[in-house]
């Protein structure tokens, strides 16, 4: 009973922190004509409720794809439809076609923030709790749950900037939990759901594939083939069920258009400054000038694939649950560091599974979380989330630093000093006029250095550290 109360407190405190973060501005608040991610989500509710399904991903007179056109998979669209219907019932003007662009009243903002909190309550938190129950003893469960929930970068992005990462990361955690429970088919379904909410979950696909494949063949070869076929059927059927309406109403063209929206190849190798390899070497090697778009995409593909190979080999050779988690994080990190068109928010993808490792590798996870939040600072600053950033960061440091070994503590404090220095310089030193992006690049390169080190460290752990039963 005591543990139950403690879990309740962990959940409620985290919900309170999330809700209070929601009091701050969201992305693009009050900035016409485009506003930001918040408006994008609201707009998707608008078009899914006001337009027929066959038009959702198509450019029509009513649906201008240049204004936040839908570019997430169907589950996002379906869920936006549900939320939009509810919003419409309370306040039709908030969902009115075309006229509701930029709609932002205290009540509508309350509703939007509530949808994210609701998603946390219904999807992310139960998934995290299930995961924690599966692989931790009951006396460690409250703190393990706390580590999965109190992630400043996730809170600031979902409840500050405004996104629904919890709706893709939640099912991912569920999939991991189901893998831990040795239920590959349910895990596949959960992962397909995550994938169909945000295609960015492809960052995890290879890890899931390799682990499930290797596990399928752990008995005889023929059994293995049967298992693989069964898995394939489950995955295809799940996909089919989710995509069916588009095939029915739009035919092959409808499906094609969906794919085009999900995987646009027209944009550059990186957008805003992001803490990956390409952006960090860009001051020295002008990639855009040397390589054409297609070649660059190919280079990214090759480097990404190469970065995954060692880990996939390990995971395939010894498909333990720990190896699976390592590969998951390494793959997501590899994609973040080396692939095409990466957004700074994608650092959440390697981070969230990594927090599973907190109890065993507190120094690594805690530093990873801190640097992840730091790497998104330019975005958060633009959103007006300066104070929540520092407040949550300080709280996070205070709650995690005592868990660290003395050496880990030293390393962390060193890194944090570097970050603090960069913050001070950015705040007080004037920008040299010829280098307008200097401080942002400083920040992203500093973060990149850390992320690359994490990538290397995880590979080292996977290859050379003896695995103990936890």
């Amino acid at each position: 009973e005591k543990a139950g109360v403690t879990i309740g407190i962990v959940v409620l405190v985290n919900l309170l922190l999330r809700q209070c973060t929601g009091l701050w501005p969201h992305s693009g608040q009050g900035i016409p004509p485009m506003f930001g991610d918040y408006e994008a989500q609201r707009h998707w509710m608008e078009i899914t409720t006001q337009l027929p399904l066959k038009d959702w991903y198509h450019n029509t007179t009513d649906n201008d794809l240049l204004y936040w056109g839908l570019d997430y998979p169907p589950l996002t669209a379906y869920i936006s439809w549900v939320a939009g219907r509810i919003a419409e019932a309370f306040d039709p003007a908030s969902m009115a076609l075309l006229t509701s662009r930029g709609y932002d009243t205290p009540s509508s903002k309350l509703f939007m923030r509530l949808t994210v909190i609701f998603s946390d309550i219904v999807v992310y938190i139960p998934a995290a709790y299930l995961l924690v129950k599966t692989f931790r003893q009951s006396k460690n469960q409250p703190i393990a749950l706390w580590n999965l929930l109190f992630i400043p970068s996730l809170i600031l992005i979902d409840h500050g900037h405004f996104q629904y990462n919890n709706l893709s990361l939640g099912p991912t955690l569920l999939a991991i939990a189901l893998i831990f429970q040795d239920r590959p088919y349910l895990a596949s379904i959960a992962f397909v759901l995550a994938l169909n909410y945000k295609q960015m979950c492809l960052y995890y696909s290879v890890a899931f594939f390799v682990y499930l494949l290797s596990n399928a063949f752990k008995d005889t070869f023929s059994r293995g083939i049967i298992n693989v076929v069964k898995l394939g059927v489950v995955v295809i059927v799940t996909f089919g069920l989710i995509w069916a309406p588009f095939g029915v109403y739009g035919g092959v063209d409808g499906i094609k258009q969906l794919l085009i929206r999900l995987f646009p190849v027209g944009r550059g190798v990186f957008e805003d400054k992001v803490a990956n390899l390409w952006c960090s070497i860009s001051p020295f090697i002008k990639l855009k000038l040397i390589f054409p778009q297609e070649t660059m995409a190919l280079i990214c593909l090759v480097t990404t694939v190469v970065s995954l190979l060692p880990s996939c080999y390990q995971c395939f050779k010894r498909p333990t649950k720990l190896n699976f988690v390592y590969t998951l994080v390494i793959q997501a990190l590899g994609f973040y560091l080396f692939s095409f068109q990466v957004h700074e928010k994608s650092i959440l993808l390697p981070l969230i599974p990594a927090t599973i490792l907190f109890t065993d590798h507190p120094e690594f996870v805690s530093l990873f979380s801190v640097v992840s939040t730091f790497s998104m600072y330019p975005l958060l600053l633009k959103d007006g989330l300066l104070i929540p950033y520092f407040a949550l960061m300080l709280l996070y440091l205070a709650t995690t630093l005592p868990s660290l070994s003395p050496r880990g503590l030293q390393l962390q404090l060193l890194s944090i000093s570097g970050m603090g220095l960069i913050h001070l310089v950015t705040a007080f030193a004037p920008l040299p006029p010829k280098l307008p992006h200097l401080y942002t690049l400083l920040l992203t390169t500093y973060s990149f250095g850390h992320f690359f080190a994490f990538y290397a460290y995880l590979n080292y752990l996977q290859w050379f550290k003896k695995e103990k039963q936890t």
Partner: protein
Amino acid sequence: RESKLNLMKATKVGIDSPYNYVIVSLLVTTIKFLLIPSYISTDFDVHRNWLALTSSLPYTQWYYEKTSEWTLDYPPFFAFFEYLLSFFAPYFDPMMLRISAEPYRSSQTILFQRLTVIATDLFFFYAVWHFGRSLKSSQVNRLAIFVLTVANPGLLMVDHVHFQYNGLLFGLIVLSISYMVRDQVIMSSIFFCIALNFKHLFLYIAPAYFSYILSHYCFKTKDASGFVSRLMTVGSVVIFIFAMSFGPFAIHGQIPQVLSRLFPFQRGLCHAYWAPNIWAIYNIIDKILKMVWLKNGWEVPSDVASMTGGLVQETSHLILPTIRPPHTLILIIVFLLPMMFRVLKKPTIAIFLMAVVQSALTFYMFGWHTHEKAILTAIIPLGLIAGDPKMGKMFYFLGTVGHFSLFPLLFQPTETLTKIFLLLTYVAILQSMLLVLHSGKPIGLSIMEAGYLWGLVPVGIINSIGTIIFPTLPFLPLLVTSVYCSLGIIYSYIRMYIHLLRS
């Protein structure tokens, strides 16, 4: 805020480590920072005006300034405090120090004022920690009392959203109580007098102090000379502090003006939102009787005032006798006397602590124009004695109802979630802390008590969307909240009074 037992083992930190206090304080402070963009009430403009007038005008004009309706109505020490704060204001926005009849709410002003509340709360943390050390209990219990006092959602709602400085003020009170527990009566009196000169609302608990000091400190000595000397000591301390505070104004003959500001009596029996005290019940009975009279076709005196119509007016009751200030004063005195006699007869520290709560609650219950925020004056001292199982149970009950009764203060849509999550989280934490304090024994609410608390949920729903469901009855949400809460508060008052008189 996790269960200390589990967390400590996991993070290798001892129970008596100051780290625990730091973490709890930091967590609460993080919430306060996050609450910065919340709704702000006119109390914010009031305090900004006080910054302006104390920095722009000589003190001889402080209590005469009336450019706006935000006139100075706190005692002089608070005015001096605002004067001190005004030295830091220019670093944020010098324009906030201009006296104006128009509200001035630049983002820098809001940030500055919010930061001053957060900063002064540090004193509150210190005071509660000091109190814990005064208690003769285990480390875990001290930490539990610290957590449940410092995380008080009423303070978060009133100080960090609505905007007030109760953290600082209750810090003085808690420190005073702490010294009393340590039997350092003079120190206790000093801090209590200081608190009184910051906010005269603390007169609510003066009767408890008076009785206790008289019997425990003065009468303790068996001979007359000792009695006189002790009385003189306390008396001179009180006089000295009041002299420091009111002296400058007395010299200029401004005392009547100051007092008229501190004790304005022209408002009605109840605030726009009836504070959930005895008068809420009195009002509702009067209204019901009026309906009964009308149904039976009996004559009803005409009356235009609607008591929760949103304006503060002179109220007159129609069927029941109209209440006027002297009635409330008599009732307060009548209900204070048993408590004071009890303290005089048995001046133990436990009795004193209960008497403080009872005194505050008596003024709240029968006072003229009580503000619902005043419930904190009873709740916070009650939390300090939550270590006692009976008092812990009452704190759980009164705390939940009392904090819920503050909800109408935060009436904007954005704050709907804030107040719900604050209260919910606190209730969970409180349950855990009470389990720790009472060695795992459950709180032990009766079916009726538990049922009543669950009844707050539908009341809360009516509070939030009542105007949508019943658009023809705009006063319904406030009325239901007020009447329902007053039932719980009256119940707590009676039960605790019985316990005080019997224990």
